[in-house]
């Protein structure tokens, strides 16, 4: 049972504790809010969706959809926009962390069921985040940080959603084995 203890040491003691990550994220987000505006993720992804829609012949600029920054419907402009750069930075940072920890690997899709569940989950999360005009970063964390009531309301329903999702997951596991 020695290997197990070594793993605990490596993961729990040698990995950064959550609070260190939290404090660092808080400092970086404060800098971003002071010099630019608070961190958000899904607004940029929606801009990409609208740009694709426009390229396919749609007219998203005529839609009724609340928006807090100028629409960027040109791919070149969008690629070098603040949101895209920050989102690509997040992805590269996560990859770098995985490589440094020697945990990077390309995961295989195991079954059509896993793929379908993943796509359905992604669509629900993305659609929900844009209806709420923000994900847990832009909506919850920065909502609360800016002393707005909406952050707390967002948090309450996030907890309810996570609870419902966990119940659904438990039901799936008890029914299928995994």
């Amino acid at each position, binding site marked *: 049972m020695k*290997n197990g203890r070594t*793993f605990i040491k490596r993961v729990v003691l040698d990995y950064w504790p959550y609070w260190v990550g939290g404090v660092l994220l808080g400092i970086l987000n404060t800098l971003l809010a002071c010099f630019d505006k608070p961190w958000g993720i899904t607004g940029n992804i929606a801009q990409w969706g609208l740009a694709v829609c426009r390229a396919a012949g749609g007219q998203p600029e005529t839609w009724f959809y609340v928006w807090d920054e100028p629409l960027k419907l040109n791919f070149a402009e969008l690629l070098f926009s603040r949101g895209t750069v920050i989102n690509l930075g997040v992805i590269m940072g996560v990859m770098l962390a995985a490589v440094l920890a020697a945990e990077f690997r390309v995961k295989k899709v195991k079954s059509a069921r896993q793929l379908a569940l993943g796509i359905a989950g992604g669509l629900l999360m993305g659609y929900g985040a844009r209806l709420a005009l923000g994900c847990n970063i832009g909506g919850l964390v920065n909502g609360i940080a800016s002393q707005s009531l909406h952050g707390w309301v967002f948090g309450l329903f996030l907890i309810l959603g996570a609870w419902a999702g966990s119940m659904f997951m438990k039901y799936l596991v008890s029914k299928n084995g995994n």
Partner: protein
Amino acid sequence: MAEIKLDMLGEVCPVPLLTAQKFIGEMKSGDTLSVETDYNRTVRNIIKWCDDMGYDFNIEDKDDGVWLVTIEKK
């Protein structure tokens, strides 16, 4: 001494832990359950669960980012 192996590659929390709990509930004392996972958070919460339940466990690094956790039911 029955041995059960669970292939949990590609599954994220909490599915591997819930599945392990489901299988261990049907096992006898002394049986072992192996869980192969590529999600490091899964290894952490299985360790915590084993500590809570008093089960012995062993962890083997199988590949970059792949672990085999073997649990012995008491």
